[in-house]
């Protein structure tokens, strides 16, 4: 039973560039949430997707956008990268109607130089 798969695992981008991160949820899950985790901090909620729509959003600027596809996989896009966007980006999948907790991927380590 495949868990959550994220790609790529590491990425180095230049300030001002754009980046796309990808996530395949655990089999049977229909909801994808994205988190940003800076070094030494807890994960910060970016947004959540269900039925191909953004259902909830955290306190992140519009430079952060996302998408969910019919197969439940998801993308996180970040435009006009800033040095402060350097972080571990975590994807978590879950069942929308249920309180069973999240399954996380291993994350994408983004470094902006």
């Amino acid at each position, binding site marked *: 039973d495949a868990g*959550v798969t994220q790609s790529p695992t590491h990425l180095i981008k230049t300030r001002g560039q754009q980046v796309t991160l990808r996530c395949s949820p655990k089999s049977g899950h229909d*909801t994808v*949430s994205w*988190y940003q985790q800076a*070094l030494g*901090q*807890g*994960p*910060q*909620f970016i947004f*959540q997707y*269900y039925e191909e729509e953004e*259902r*909830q959003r955290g*306190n992140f600027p519009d430079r952060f956008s996302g998408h969910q596809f019919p197969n439940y996989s998801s993308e996180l896009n970040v435009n006009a990268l800033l040095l402060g966007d350097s972080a*571990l980006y*975590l994807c*978590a999948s*879950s069942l*929308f109607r249920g*309180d*069973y*907790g*999240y*399954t*996380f*991927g*291993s*994350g994408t*380590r983004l470094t902006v130089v």
Partner: protein
Amino acid sequence: SQQGEEDPQALSIQEGENATMNCSYKTSINNLQWYRQNSGRGLVHLILIRSNEREKHSGRLRVTLDTSKKSSSLLITASRAADTASYFCATDLSGGYQKVTFGIGTKLQVIP
């Protein structure tokens, strides 16, 4: 912003000892969850306790929830070196859609 706040932020114990971590939160919740993270990797779900539950066990883990005090504790008994990790509490807020908000974590070191 962080909903939960773990205490202590760092904890160092000898193998075989028990480790207790506490979490306080601010608003009403549907459930509270504990996760483990090893060295900047993905988080692993450990246990979920619902707002109408007071205590839950899973193997060497024991979680308590006091909704009147808006607090929870995670007890790891007979700790092992492999338990060395960061532990986060996360709250799923009441009302509206499922949205899980994490605290800042407790860094646990178990010395062999």
